[in-house]
């Protein structure tokens, strides 16, 4: 009897696994791991794309916040999940930086990257009454006073700043704050001279004129703040920013990646998703699996050069 039961359970197990690979994907609800807390930007992007994609896939996508270690805990958890297409992960730029700093055991190679969803440049911000008029004023001051210009850093280490420092051979006094919500008041209150955040994080201070943008760190001007020149335009050939995409554990069948990729394409094109991203001052940037994989490889190399 016991033996029979074992056989039945084993058979059921094989059937269940087989069905996961079959053409009827998705047969059950999908879980999306968000490696940052509920209410933040990454969470909002994850929840909204999940909401838009669920109607396309015909199954619910439930979001699970798994926070800790600047995203390392959630992304490692996602990388170790069963590669059956039922556990997906919101992959953020930390996948390119943390492993190289020894702060995460998994890296981008542990994922099948499906789609890049969002790419935002960093903006260099000073308070409205700052003596700096453009990025070159800041660079000149930093050159004259090495290590003296106070920079409100949203994370330690700060790659936006390090890219600029390396390119220009300057050094700022980077003071680590817990994210944009603490770094922005530090600039508003005059405790620090400058900060770098994404446009969405500072949109209300930019609109009200409390903060002044010295430049945006992208190749071309961003539609959200079209009046702000890029650093490149000002003769400083530096770009940096942050990005978020969706990945599945390595080994997930190609057909499933294909199905998911198409679903996310459709979700990103939906009016609902476009409206949400526009309101949050975030830029939709769709890259397919190959482009996204190459992009992450390139970014990992760029960050590696900064870390070393």
């Amino acid at each position: 009897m016991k033996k029979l039961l074992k056989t039945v359970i084993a058979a059921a197990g094989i059937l269940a696994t087989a069905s996961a690979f079959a053409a009827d994907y998705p047969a059950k609800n999908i879980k999306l791991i968000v490696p940052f807390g509920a209410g933040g930007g990454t969470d909002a992007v994850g929840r909204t794309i999940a909401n838009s994609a669920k109607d396309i896939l015909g199954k619910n996508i439930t979001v699970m916040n798994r926070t800790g270690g600047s995203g390392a805990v959630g992304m490692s958890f996602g990388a170790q999940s069963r590669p059956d297409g039922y556990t997906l992960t919101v992959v953020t730029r930390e996948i390119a930086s943390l492993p190289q700093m020894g702060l995460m055991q998994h890296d981008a190679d542990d994922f099948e990257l499906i789609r890049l969803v969002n790419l935002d440049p960093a903006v260099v911000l000073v308070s409205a009454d700052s003596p700096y008029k453009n990025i070159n004023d800041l660079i000149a001051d930093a050159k004259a006073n090495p290590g003296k210009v106070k920079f409100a850093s949203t994370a330690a280490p700060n790659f936006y700043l390090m890219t600029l420092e390396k390119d220009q051979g300057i050094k700022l006094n980077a003071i680590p704050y817990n994210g944009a919500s603490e770094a922005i008041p530090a600039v508003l209150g005059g405790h620090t001279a400058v900060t770098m955040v994404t446009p969405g994080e500072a949109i209300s201070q930019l609109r009200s004129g409390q903060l002044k943008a010295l430049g945006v760190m992208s190749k071309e001007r961003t539609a959200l703040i079209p009046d702000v020149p890029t650093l490149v335009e000002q003769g400083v050939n530096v770009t940096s920013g942050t990005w978020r995409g969706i990945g599945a554990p390595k080994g997930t069948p190609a057909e499933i990646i294909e199905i998911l990729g198409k679903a996310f394409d459709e979700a990103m094109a939906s009016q609902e998703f476009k409206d949400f991203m526009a309101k949050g001052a975030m830029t939709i940037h769709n890259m397919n699996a190959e482009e996204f994989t190459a992009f992450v490889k390139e970014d990992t190399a760029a960050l590696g050069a900064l870390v070393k």
Partner: protein
Amino acid sequence: MFEYLIGGLATAFSPTVLPVLLFGVVGGVVLGALPGLTATMGVAILLPFTFGMEPTAALVMLIGVYIGGIYGGSIAAILLKTPGTPASAASVLDGYSMTLKGQAARALSISAVASFIGGLTSTIVLIAIAPMLAKFALRFNAPEYFALALFGLTIIASVASKNILKGLLAGTIGLLVSTVGLDPVTSVPRFTFGIMDLYSGINVIPVLIGLFAISEALTQLEHLFLKAKANSEFNYKLLSLKDLKTMLPTAFKSALMGTSIGSVPGAGADISAFVCYNEAKRVAKNPDEFGQGSVQGLAAAEAGNNGVTGGSLVPLLTLGVPGDAVAAVLLGALIIQGLTPGPLLFSQNPEIVYGIFSSMLVGNIIMLLVGLLGIRFFCKITEVPKILMIPIIIFLSIVGAYAINNSMFDVGIAIGFGVLGFLLSKMDVPSSPILLAIILGPMAEQNLRKSLLMFEGSWSFLYERPIALAFILLAVFSVYSTMRRHKKARQAESENP
């Protein structure tokens, strides 16, 4: 301004908004009362449901959850020594002592009234002087946060009123625990032993659940096997007029302190409750009553944590930056509704701003009514036989510890601290200093190191910045008065043994 306010009140009472507000407050009270489910989580979980709602109704509901959630945590803290949220941990000290004396109804009514005073005062301050308060908040930076944390930490000495050494022992355990995780400046892992779950440090909520809920359940369990201690006679007497008179000055002062602390980004209701408690004890005529069921102690903690609700909206509405985790979610809600939080909101969408103000006024009234009318119902919990209550508390604790981050690791932390708290209570070592040190330790460390970076290694920020200096002096007074009290107590003891 007044016409907008009246318009706002009309909105708050309109048939589409009032039920939403009522639902928010009651839902918040329930969420807050359950260990592990916090006001922040409640607001974050409800956020996606507001996407399709009309902006005012959406914000009103979230604010209702916020107000209710901060208050709800205290019900469980007072009745079961199981604070639903970290903001209510300070209410355990005197609230649960009252419950043990059979005065649960009195404690709950004090808590409801003090929370109401805290919430209402901070809302009025928010409406009246938000822009001025925002200027004050902007003067806060690393040196001021460090000094505030330092003042908060001196409460360790005053919580441990009987044996100061044991209090310091508990505080040191907490400080050591708070060093686990990535170094805040250099991002080097400390005491993580390669375990990734430890990289972001030990989460305070599982610790809270363990130290209070689980360890109390274990103690109760032990009592079941030992000869059961007869419960004090239970009565349904609410607070007396004398209680009200005693608590009013403390409650108003704590409400204003809570509003100020809330208006500073990065310091929330948990810190406020402890700081207000400490301050109330520092100035009290009979500080020895604190921790034994003091009306003032409970009122200070309760007005202090609800005082944060209005304060945390100050930076949100005037600067566009959130004052605490809940305000961060509200910021997201405003943006999703296509609104720009910050000073522009007053000129572009005054109906939204005054809708928020009025719903806070009405929400606090609803909270008071729910709190007072619910007392009889809440008190029934204490009549549930222990043999049923203990497994329920342990069950809720484990679910709560898991839910905060969907992590079994956190469940392990909760159980570990539960056993630790139980063993420490056997040795008369108080557990609240551990929690306090875990909340304030990282704040003190990060901001001290940030200050030293800002001032390039100079310690001048300790005396050159007036707000920082004021808090440091308060900390010194607080330690001094506690020491003097202990000396007196020891002298009195040696005179009449």
